[in-house]
């Protein structure tokens, strides 16, 4: 499933126009990105939590140039599914 399919399903479920659904979806995405880039974690009940994790700098081997490299620190977004979601995925 991709974005269009998702929006179509959600609009049908809620009985709203697809244009509204799309605008809502875009604004939601934007908000999520903003909160996560600020470092806050977002918890959606019944679905899971989105967190931000910090990675320290580390040595890594680049097999392409066959050299060791010092990878810089970075932050990445993580998702942890909730128990209900896990059950749903496994029951099926």
């Amino acid at each position, binding site marked *: 499933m991709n974005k269009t399919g998702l929006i179509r399903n959600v609009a049908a479920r809620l009985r709203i126009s697809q244009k509204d659904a799309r605008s809502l979806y875009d604004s939601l995405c934007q*908000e999520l990105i903003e909160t996560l880039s600020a470092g806050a974690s977002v918890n959606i009940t019944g679905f899971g939590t989105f967190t931000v994790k910090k990675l320290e700098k580390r040595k890594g081997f680049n097999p392409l140039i066959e050299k060791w490299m010092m990878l810089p620190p970075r932050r990445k977004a993580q998702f942890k599914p909730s128990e209900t979601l896990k059950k749903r995925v496994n029951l099926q």
Partner: protein
Amino acid sequence: MKKKEPVSGRIDVLTRRVAERAGQSEARTRKFIDALFEEVGEGLTGEERVSLAGFGIFKKKFAEKRTGYNPQKKKKIKIKAHNRVVFTPAGALANAVNRKYRHLRPNVIDEMKVMTGLMKREKTTLSPARKKARFRAIVTLGVLAFLFLLLLSLIISIPAIFRESDAQVVRFVRDLNTMMGLRDLTKSLSDNLPERMNEKELGHYIFRTRGVLTRNRKIIEKHGVRRGESIYSIAKKYYGNKFLWPDLYYQNKNRFEDPDLIHVGDKIYVHEKLGDPGNFTPQQKRQLVQAYITMYRVLRALGKKEIASGNHRLIRKGKKRLRDSRWTLHTALRYDHKLLNVYEDAIYPEDRKIVDTYIDRLGYGDGTRRHFWDYLF
């Protein structure tokens, strides 16, 4: 649109902001959010993956059956085969989240450095609090080490301190007693025995004055000396222990001068026994030791006099007397190991050195020997 609220992960704050941004009511946005993620979940259960452009990809992955381990209970666990949900951030989300470090790039590490330092742990920077704590710890350790060394040096130098001051302590106690007017049996004899008096004074003191020792002791027997007897044998006869002979001599010091020279028919007054040599009270021990020291002084004086006479026979006798004087000192050591220190003012240094060699050779006379720690305490 103004967004004055701080960014928060709470769902109600999120819905409010989304509603503001999209221009919809809060209730609607809340419904929308719930429905959206419901649909994602539905999609996951049905298909393999849900990819949201600009956000990320939700995938369903299969995990095989495996045996896990519970370290708390130290048991193996069986984990069934199951599906798990995986999210990979992509596009705008990944870039935005890493905005802070976006400018940093990986660097190639020098080959040589890698070879030498690959296994080395990287330098960890310490926080100021940790640095302070570490500095304080080092300072405390340094101070403790210094104090310990100081203490050690003091302990080692104690014998040097006490060699001088033992005699001073005795003298001080003596002066105190005289000042306070305490005159009883416990008063030490060397109160009456001044330091290093010359032979003339010594002679007067020994042979003219009465002894303190005999004050509270009654006379048991007036023994007439028979042929072949000596002070040793008389002491052994009445006291059972010939090493109490200085005591016996002291009881009778008015009656004869030379302890080696007693004649048949002399009367020797034998007082009560000083005490059981095995368990002397400190006063008795002190009295006996001081009697021994008097004997040492007497013999020495007599020896010096004989040597000074010029008569070769007398000189030989004098030398023997001097030897005897030192050996009496050594015999006294069995009653007080620290004799040489305490009565330092009454013992001549050359004799002290010689008796030291006796101690090294033969120990203290009662079976014990001198060890290096005797110098300490």
